[in-house]
């Protein structure tokens, strides 16, 4: 029984933490108070639910308890300080009457979605440093603790704590508004939010083996946040595009590394390990978004990954379609990394010589200094053109730049093969 309740509290935490914090920030304007009261509510649940039973609407119950705590604290602060008027103004509905944990009122559940959206946009405000945007999103919306976030990003705990304190202080002192931005700046701010979620996802995806376990947790949270955003902003095609992109990548997660933790290339991956349900779900999300004819970088990237994910085997991959999509991506969001990927796609569709030409002109721009995948791709194309000596040289260069162990082992293996030929 107790274990069941603990499990239910954990589920409620996942479902409700972000919305409780978001509601309380909207009500009090005090980020620290919001987190404390949300925490208190879950502590109260652990104590009350085993005795009284789990309420029908756990989220609403928790929100009510948290609101009561916040109201109490604000009342206490207001006493003597004559700040009661301010409390009334800051309260969304002017309702500062204490609520019993059992009488769930509508205020506790209404406007909830809106509040989480306000919270996401405020956490990802471009006036905050990017690393703080990520940390703040994980703390307030997801409910990860400061030590958990510090661990995930491989920084000391006090550093992460300070990052969060500074960000919250800036929100207060510079008065960063707690709102969904108005229409004229919404597109650029949405792009900023998507950038944070994508960064979070990439961090987890390119995990080093040592931190793999923690990073897998981040991946789950990134997908969950993208789902939330997509539910809150159903009109935004790029939000759906990012969600589809994450789901498609994540669907192949189990096949990416072998039992030693080494990277398995796409063509060598065991496709039966791919999550076909998730691929199907992502494909539907992407198709619905693309039908609106407002393509953007995330939708195009998702379409590229979908080409891979829906091919029954590596040989059946529609490379000319992928190369065409990379052309579009290079137009929509030009970057050296996109250009490098385009070179790979073109080499698969039209032969290694065509790909090598793109890589060579990219290398000439020197826009990717220290990036191991540039010499790695170059080496691979040279290998396929049977120019072994040059290939070995670039494998060597890639090896000197590579950061993760699994990729290092992969490149070393290729170098050995090339030299043996």
């Amino acid at each position, binding site marked *: 029984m107790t274990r069941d309740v603990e499990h239910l509290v954990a589920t409620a935490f996942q479902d409700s933490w972000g919305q409780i914090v978001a509601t309380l920030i909207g009500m009090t304007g005090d980020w620290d108070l919001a987190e404390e009261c949300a925490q208190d509510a879950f502590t109260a649940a652990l104590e009350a639910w085993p005795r009284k039973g789990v309420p029908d609407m756990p989220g609403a119950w928790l929100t009510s308890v948290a609101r009561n705590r916040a109201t109490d604290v604000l009342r206490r602060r207001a006493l003597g300080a004559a700040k009661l008027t301010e409390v009334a103004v800051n309260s969304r509905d002017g309702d500062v009457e204490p609520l019993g944990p059992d009488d769930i009122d509508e205020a506790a559940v209404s406007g909830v979605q809106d509040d989480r959206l306000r919270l996401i946009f405020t956490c990802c*405000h471009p*006036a905050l440093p990017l690393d703080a945007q990520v940390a703040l999103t994980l703390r307030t919306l997801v409910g990860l603790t400061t030590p958990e976030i510090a661990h995930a990003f491989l920084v000391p705990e006090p550093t992460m704590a300070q990052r969060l304190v500074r960000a919250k202080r800036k929100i207060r*002192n*510079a*008065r*960063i*508004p707690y709102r969904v*931005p108005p229409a004229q*700046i919404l597109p650029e701010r949405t792009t900023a939010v998507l950038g944070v979620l994508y960064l979070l996802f990439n961090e987890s995806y390119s995990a080093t083996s040592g931190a793999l376990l923690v990073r897998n947790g981040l991946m789950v949270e990134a997908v969950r946040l993208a789902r939330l955003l997509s539910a809150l902003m159903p009109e935004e095609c790029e939000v759906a595009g990012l969600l589809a992109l994450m789901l498609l990548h994540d669907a192949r997660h189990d096949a990416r590394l072998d039992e030693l933790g080494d990277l398995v290339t796409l063509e060598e991956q065991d496709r039966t390990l791919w999550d076909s349900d998730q691929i199907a779900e992502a494909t539907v999300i992407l198709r619905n978004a693309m039908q609106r004819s407002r393509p953007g970088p995330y939708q195009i990237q998702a379409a590229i990954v979908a080409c891979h994910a829906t091919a029954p085997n590596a040989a059946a991959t529609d490379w000319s379609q992928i190369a065409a999509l990379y052309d579009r991506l290079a137009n929509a969001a030009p970057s050296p990394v996109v250009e490098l990927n385009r070179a790979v796609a073109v080499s698969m569709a039209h032969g290694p010589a065509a790909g090598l030409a793109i890589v060579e002109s990219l290398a000439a721009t020197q826009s990717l200094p220290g990036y191991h995948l540039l010499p790695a791709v170059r080496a691979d194309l040279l290998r396929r053109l049977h120019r072994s000596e040059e290939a070995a040289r670039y494998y060597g260069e890639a090896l000197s730049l590579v950061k993760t162990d699994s990729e290092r082992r992969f490149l070393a293996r290729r170098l050995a093969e090339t030299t043996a030929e």
Partner: protein
Amino acid sequence: MRYMLMICDDESDDRGPLEIVGDTEHVAWIDYMDRQGISFLDGVRLRPSTDATKVQSRNGETLISDGPFMESKEHIGGFALIECEHLDDAIEVAARHPFAAHGVIEIRPVWDE
């Protein structure tokens, strides 16, 4: 909420205050604030950094030297003190300042207690 906008550029624009105030872009900027109900409280144009003097007091001694306190390509060329609701409003004002197109504007909230 009051914000100080520090208007910085590489001093390539060497116009004085009278010229700037008469400039159509500058007039449009002031008009924008009027339309948005944002108060323009005060503003000054500074003479260039070649006219700057640095002063420090150390152990009872006054150290005087030539030049601005920062070695930088961008120098503060003026200030504008505005009053608006929140940072996003101040950002909109800063983005529309004529110098934002070639220089950079730093927004600092006024420390009110």
